[in-house]
């Protein structure tokens, strides 16, 4: 039993955190998230150079042979700096699905992911579907050697920056049936793709995406994607839990620091017992969220791995919200401003709470996996 990181993992963390400190300050962030593009494209290239994008990918496809712990390290640092770049959709989800499927598509795309030559977005949510991955109105039909996609996807995070989309669609079975779910690779520039781009909270960009007879390439086996999807989503959730922990750490530090300096009624507000206890509750929540994130990442792939991921997602969502709401409350008026970073971390945490299933959704999944 040992929770220490390997030397390589520490190196990865250090080089990333140095890079972010130098080039991804909150001031920088405010500027590029407000620009029309919403990001500074140099960062993605630098992430590739730092080896982040290759870190969790297998060596035979241009990766560095790491895994979930490497993604965890990256995402925790990303969370600390409110990074907007889509590491999870590209590397964890895209990479994960391709690794799982293998074959020519993996040969083609994985090295491009590792090298920073492609950005993927994951188009899975539909208006009626909420957090149920199998509740799909989007369909795909085989036509000749390829597939043709039709449907609408909601809130595809990172889509405005992506060149390629990973899309879930039904190739058979009734709505919400486990069988008949397939995953496809779609060029964003392909025929029949329409996008509406917009900003989402905490500096992200997203699109609603429509497909009309769009050509698509099948990833893996037709109609049997739900199980590998669930598995890859577990990895994605575990990575985002690390991101949340990075954001929580920043809120925790900002709040205790503020409480030590801000004076009211003639003393630092950190001397008021109710605020002290509230910050202790934040600290306990932070520690519990850290534990939940660690559990999720370490148990990936175990027989009870999915259950651990859902437990962690549900618990950490609650902890994160508690920390964020307390951070704003203790900052008072200043915490309500869009100028201070606190509010943006708050929004990132709310976004992560929803992403890939609300706490209630995951408590239900937990209970289901128990039976």
């Amino acid at each position: 039993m040992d929770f220490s990181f390997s030397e390589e993992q520490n190196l990865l963390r250090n080089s990333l955190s140095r890079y972010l400190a130098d080039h991804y300050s909150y001031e920088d962030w405010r500027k590029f998230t407000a620009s029309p593009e919403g990001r500074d494209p140099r960062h993605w290239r630098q992430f590739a150079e730092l080896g982040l994008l290759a870190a969790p990918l297998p060596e035979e496809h241009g990766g560095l042979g790491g895994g979930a712990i490497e993604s965890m390290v990256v995402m925790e640092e990303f969370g600390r700096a409110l990074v907007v770049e889509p590491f999870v959709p590209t590397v964890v989800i895209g990479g994960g699905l391709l690794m799982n499927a293998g074959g020519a598509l993996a040969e083609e795309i994985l090295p491009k992911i590792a090298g920073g030559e492609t950005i993927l977005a994951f188009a899975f949510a539909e208006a009626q579907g909420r957090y149920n991955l199998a509740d799909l109105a989007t369909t795909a039909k085989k036509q000749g050697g390829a597939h043709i996609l039709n449907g609408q996807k909601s809130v595809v995070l990172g889509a405005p920056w992506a060149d390629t989309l990973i899309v879930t669609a039904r190739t058979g079975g009734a709505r919400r049936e486990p069988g008949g779910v397939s995953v496809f690779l779609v060029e964003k520039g392909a025929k029949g793709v329409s996008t509406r781009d917009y900003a989402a909270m905490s500096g992200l960009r997203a699109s609603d995406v429509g497909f009309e007879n769009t050509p698509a390439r099948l990833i893996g086996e037709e109609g049997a994607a739900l199980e590998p999807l669930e598995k890859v989503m577990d990895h994605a959730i575990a990575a985002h839990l690390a991101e949340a922990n990075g954001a929580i750490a920043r809120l925790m530090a900002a709040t205790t620091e503020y409480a030590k300096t801000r004076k009211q009624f003639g003393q630092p507000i950190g001397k008021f017992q109710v605020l002290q206890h509230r910050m202790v509750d934040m600290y306990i929540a932070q520690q519990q969220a850290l534990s939940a994130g660690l559990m999720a990442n370490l148990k990936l792939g175990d027989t009870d791995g999915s259950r651990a991921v859902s437990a962690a997602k549900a618990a950490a969502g609650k902890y994160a919200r508690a920390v964020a709401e307390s951070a704003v409350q203790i900052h008072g008026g200043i915490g309500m401003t869009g100028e201070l970073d606190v509010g943006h971390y708050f929004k990132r945490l709310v976004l992560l709470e929803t992403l890939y299933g609300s706490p209630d959704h995951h408590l239900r999944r937990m209970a289901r996996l128990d039976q």
Partner: protein
Amino acid sequence: MDLSFSPQEEAFRQEVLGFIAEAKPKLPQKLGAPEQARLSKDDYLIWHRLLFKKGWVAPAWPKAFGGADWSVTQRYIFSTEIAKAGMPTTLPFGLGMVGPVIIAFGNDAQKKKFLPRILSGDDWWCQGYSEPGAGSDLASLRCRAVRDGDHYVVTGQKTWTTLAQYADWIFCLVRTDPAAKPQEGISFLLIDMKSPGITVKPIVILDGAPEVNEVFFDSVKVPAENLVGDENKGWTYAKFLLAHERSALASASRSRAALARLKAIAKAEQLDGAPLIRDPDFAHKLAALEADLMALEFTELRILSQEAKGEKVGSESSILKVAGSEIQQRVADLAMEAVGYYALPNDMSLGDNEAVGPDYARGLAGRYFNLRKASIYGGSNEIQRNIIAKAVLGL
């Protein structure tokens, strides 16, 4: 023990309903959906002037000053029905704050000059209390006013000034005697926002709305006739005003209206092919929230009935602020949750864009973030609890 209104009160309620039915078509639609509204000055004034024309814009003011002079119960009925109908509230800064202070402590010239223009909506007021170093702790404020002949020279900064960008006037707490103890030496001053030396700088808050501002005073000359009451007695007037603010009832009916809109959303949203409102988890949270709200409605009614009997209601009513704000926040939270992924793009922080996803999703996340203020502004819930502990529980 009687829950019904008297025949007179019931007749009044009918009159209010009649007025609402008549007024509603004249209002822009967004006035009825506070989750989604980003109101302009004109939006606010349309409603203000409709009420003014009817003579109802100042329910609590004496008739002599153009108020409606309603009983507590009438005021409750009015604000409840207004909320039920999804109509906006009037802004409190003129009608609910500086107006009552001028009525209680102002001189005749001030009454004559200011009150009619508050009623008509010709003057837009804002409140200059908080400062960067003095949020909940008002006694430590530092904005200075130095007497110089027939005027004061004001220098300093106010912050969190709601809608100051529209304001014609600001009422300020300023320090006139820096040597006095913190709560003494403060005066209550009325300042023309067009005075040279005033700068307003918007503060963008969590939902992206330019709702509050910083107001800077750089040697601003203010005629001495704009001092309300006595110099260095401003703390007394501020406390009067705070008490006035706290006893404002009917926040529950606002939450009730928001809950009704939330239920409509939960009926429209889907989960596994059924309406979200049928989902046991969501239904449970909704019911628990409504149960708390129903209790709060009766807590309001109990306080109302005491006030209506002429009993003095003191800091007990602070619980309405605490419990009321927490319920408001829960409604907003659940509404954000109800729309799932479509909450994410709809926090209004990037401009007035159209809704992404269903129309009702617009602004819901922004509303949740915005309402974090409900437990901070106007005396944070921590301060309210301090007050209750001392004044009600005697601790």
